[in-house]
């Protein structure tokens, strides 16, 4: 039987990375992970019995991110847009510069589309699993992917 503390401690870096890719900001990512692992604790019995515990935990993080997005409009206005934040440590080289531009472009994509892009292209999850995770149809995942990619390209085009 897997122990909650043991599991979460071991998987924390992976969960934090998922949250960071979704939020684009490490402080918000930590907030999302903190809420997500609290939820995981309250539903630990169900989570432990799930077919794939990692997928379950990841889904909790993604849904927490989407819920927080819906609720925290006031906090977003106080903090400002992601690109108004102090810049990340100087990008040393064109690759890092491209990555930084891409990261900022991704933070400007609507949350649900961003979640779909992260899950499909950065975590390599199949469409069916993304649909299950976001509780929508596979068709919706595909359309959100297409809209999200168009938004990223638009943002990158505007930045250049």
């Amino acid at each position: 039987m897997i122990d909650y503390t043991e599991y979460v401690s071991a998987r924390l870096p992976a969960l934090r990375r998922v949250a960071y890719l979704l939020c684009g900001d490490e402080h918000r990512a930590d907030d999302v992970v903190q809420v997500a692992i609290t939820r995981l604790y309250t539903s630990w019995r169900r989570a432990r019995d799930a077919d794939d515990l990692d997928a379950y935990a990841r889904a909790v993080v993604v849904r927490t991110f989407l819920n927080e997005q819906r609720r925290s409009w006031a906090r977003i206005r106080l903090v400002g847009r992601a690109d108004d934040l102090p810049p990340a440590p100087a990008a040393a080289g064109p690759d890092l510069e491209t990555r930084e531009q891409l990261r900022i472009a991704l933070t400007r994509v609507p949350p649900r589309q961003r979640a779909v892009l992260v899950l499909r292209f950065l975590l390599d999850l199949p469409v069916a699993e993304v649909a299950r995770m976001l509780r929508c149809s596979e068709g919706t995942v595909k359309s959100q992917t297409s809209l999200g990619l168009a938004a990223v390209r638009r943002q990158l085009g505007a930045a250049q």
Partner: protein
Amino acid sequence: MSMDDDRELLAPLRDLEPPGASTVSVAQAIRDGRRRKAAFAAAAAVMVALVAVGLGLSQRQQLPTAAGRFDVATAGLLCSPRSQGGRS
């Protein structure tokens, strides 16, 4: 645009890691989780108590009542031996 082009577009972010140290606390999550479970259990108990009180009150209001006034004269008929199936 093919699927590979789409994947290529986001490829620079594949090895992106959170820059700073984590501020997430597992102990805090356990404390908050316990508090949330206790609050949920308390709310459920209050709900059950409210439903029980509500059902009790509605049962009390539904007790059968006499249709008219109680009359001593007619009440005697009900108690007569004939009405009880005995000999007169």
